[in-house]
Structure formats: structure tokens, C-alpha cells
């Protein structure tokens, strides 16, 4: 049997004014695929963070480059890939933030990857600086702990 897979793609220039288009696209695809509004908002925010990173860091504000967002909806999950051809980064060099220190310094931003990790079920990186960088984010339709357990816990 052929595996259920529906593919969507959006390609825009790396201009922060296009983040709204990206957010709406991701939200629409997620809700049409069966995610709740709450989960669709989480996916939208995660993708927004990943794309903001591309605009700010990978392309350093250069607006003429391209961001590609590939969405693949499968039976049990949504996979969103954010692709760029920018500078890239070393995912291992990103340390979990010390929130006390963070708040003390009144720093803005820089929490992107940690936000993504808390919003999605899986996150992965494929970094080839200047050639192709990919941030791959996965969210399952049901939390996996619930899916694997035989009983739903009742409150």
C-alpha cells in the first residue's frame, strides 16, 4: 500500500516581511491536515522561529536570498523542512540557555532553537554552509506517550 503523504511547498525571498505569509501557510496546512488550532499555532511559531533565524543569521538580513518551506503530511505526523543557502551554524554549539542569566541581561531573541524544541516533537539539522542548510521539524498528530500507552490517563 502506498504510504499517505501530501506535500506542500512555499518559496519566498528572505525578507522578514514575508514571515507573515509563511506563518499563515503553515497554519493553514496544519489545520487542513487535522491539527487542532492550538497545535497548529505551535507549529506556526516553531517555523516562524526557524525562518527568523534564516533571515537574521543565515542571510544576515540580505533580502534577495530564498527561503523554502517544505511540508510533508503523513498519516501520523507533519514534517516541516526550512531550507536556506546561507551561512549555516553548528547545532552542537548551541547551549541550553541559563534563564536566570538570560533574564538578568535583558537579552532579546536567541531562544529560537530552544523554543522550537519545546514546541515540536523532533528537530534535526543538516548544515552545509553556503550550499544547503535544513532545519527539520516533526510533530505527531497524537503525543507519542498517549499513542503507545493502552489507557489514556484521566485527570
Amino acid at each position: 500500500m502506498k504510504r499517505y503523504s501530501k506535500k506542500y511547498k512555499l518559496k519566498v525571498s528572505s525578507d522578514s516581511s514575508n514571515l507573515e505569509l509563511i506563518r499563515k501557510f503553515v497554519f493553514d496546512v496544519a489545520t487542513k491536515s487535522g491539527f487542532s488550532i492550538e497545535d497548529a499555532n505551535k507549529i506556526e511559531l516553531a517555523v516562524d522561529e526557524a525562518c527568523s533565524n534564516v533571515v537574521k543569521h543565515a542571510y544576515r538580513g540580505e533580502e534577495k536570498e530564498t527561503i523554502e518551506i517544505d511540508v510533508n503530511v503523513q498519516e501520523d505526523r507533519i514534517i516541516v523542512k526550512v531550507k536556506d543557502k546561507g551561512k549555516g551554524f553548528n547545532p552542537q554549539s548551541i547551549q541550553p540557555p541559563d534563564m536566570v542569566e538570560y533574564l538578568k541581561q535583558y537579552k532579546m531573541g536567541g531562544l529560537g532553537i530552544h523554543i522550537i524544541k519545546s514546541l515540536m516533537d523532533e528537530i534535526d539539522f543538516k548544515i552545509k554552509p553556503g550550499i544547503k542548510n535544513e532545519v527539520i521539524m516533526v510533530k505527531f498528530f497524537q503525543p507519542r506517550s498517549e499513542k503507545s500507552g493502552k489507557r489514556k490517563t484521566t485527570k
Partner: protein
Amino acid sequence: MITLRKKRETFQLKVPSETKNLEIIRSFIYRTAIKAGFDSECASRIELSVDEACSNVIKHAYQMKTDNFIEINISIDKEKFVVTIIDQGKGFNPEKIELPDMMEYLAELRVGGLGIYLMKTLMDEVEYDIIPGKKNIVRMVKYFYALEE
């Protein structure tokens, strides 16, 4: 109304050929048109026109088969907003499509079939490039000059 437009900007959207995705397409077109500087009335016209073209692709070119794709490209420059809709479906002969006799149309209480007529009314230019089964392209243009009048 003065809008500062960059030299040229392109956008691309690709979705499976399903009617439920028309909403995604419409929202993409409307927002891009607003961003380009059109007012909401004009953006709605472009949105409706693209919706008609994509409905035709789903219904006729792909005959409701949902495992195909619709590709929408937008190219914006200083003077115009160009939308191209690409499919790999059945295609049609644009010369065979006659403008409807509206009196007769209404007398017969027909529904649908006005797509191309509608697009021509809503946009400044509509043209086709049909290679059945390989690639069909509908190209629609809306100029910005109307805004400055």
C-alpha cells in the same frame, strides 16, 4: 498611494490538487497582492481569478484526482503582478472557449463554466500555454497603473 517596490520579487507555492487547498491558495494570493500594494478590492479580484483557474485545474485538468500538484508562481516588478498557474493535467483548447451569452446562460440556470470569462473580466491579461499531459500554464497579469489613476 505610494508604494516602494523593490525591483523584482518572486513567490512560489505548490500544493496537492485538492479543493480543500483552494483556501491556502486564496490566502497566499490575497496576502501577497496586499503586500505588493494593491487595495483589498483589487487583491480580492486577483484572489478570485486565481481561485477560478485552480478550480479548473482540479476539476478539469486533473479530473478530481488528488495525487497531483498545482504550482503557483507570482512575480512582482515595478509595473505588474504576474501569476502563473502550472499543472501537468489534461489541458484544453483555449480557442474553443467562447465568451458566454449571458442571457442564455441565465435562462438555462447553469452553474459554473464561467471561469475563464470571469478571469478575463477580473485581470488585465490572461493567456494560456497548453501542452496536454505535460504542462499547462495559465498566466494572468494585473498592472499597478490602475492604482495611480
